[in-house]
């Protein structure tokens, strides 16, 4: 239930703005109906594709970060696969990677603070880890 996923998908470039919003809101409601939580939605704009996908040379990239179970992502991918304007998608699980990065940051912060002031070690070490 606490898995964090990052789903990046490409929408065909000739899609209207409101259709994009409709698609994104559909996905958002799907996430919440499956008991997940949308962390962020980022539209990365139109980009040139590195190769031709379904006869398109450009595409609109959208990045959706969500928290939820594996079944949630399964459902989202199923919807993207059947939706006609989405031409490509990629799901990456990022909670393990985030854990590793936080651990490294905490170690680095602790090392840095103990070298300067030992009293502020714990206090300064906790806050960056909490915000990160």
């Amino acid at each position, binding site marked *: 239930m606490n898995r964090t996923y990052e789903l990046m998908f490409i929408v065909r470039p000739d899609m209207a703005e409101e259709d994009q919003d409709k698609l994104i809101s559909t996905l958002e409601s799907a996430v919440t109906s499956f008991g997940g939580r949308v962390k962020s939605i980022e539209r990365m704009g139109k980009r040139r*594709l590195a190769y031709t996908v379904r006869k398109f040379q450009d595409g609109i990239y959208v990045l959706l970060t969500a928290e939820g179970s594996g079944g949630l992502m399964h459902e989202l991918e199923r919807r993207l696969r059947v939706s006609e304007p989405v031409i*490509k998608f990629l799901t*990456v699980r990022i909670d393990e990677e985030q854990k590793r990065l936080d651990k490294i940051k905490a170690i680095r912060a602790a090392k840095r603070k103990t070298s300067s002031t030992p009293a502020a070690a714990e206090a300064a070490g906790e806050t960056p880890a909490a915000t990160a």
Partner: protein
Amino acid sequence: MTEETRAAAGSTTEAVATPERPERTDRPERAERPERTERVDRGERRPGRSSPGAGGGREGGARKFFRRKKVCKFCVEKIEAINYKDVRLLQQFVAESGKIVPRRLTGVCTPHQRRLSSAIKQARNIALLPFAGRA
């Protein structure tokens, strides 16, 4: 071809029963075949002996020969997260043909090279990097 030469040599006292022995083993009997050891050396990180144009052409063209002590860019700059989304960082490690550059040319350390190559493959899947470029 290599098995035939090994059988023809015949004089080696090593166990010839296993002809599929990889070339990386450094046995004293191999001294009689100098070209094999040279090939092993070139596979290792001893680029000073090989031809300068072999792998140096990738690094912007200004490099005439290799630097012995190539450092891992990620270790030096303490870049922890190699994301598939930052194409500019990944493109430094991709040849013009779209191939991933081996770490003996870029000097990346092994764990970072592993993460880098999986990030490049993810970027290829989402059409941020090409699978095959010109050649």
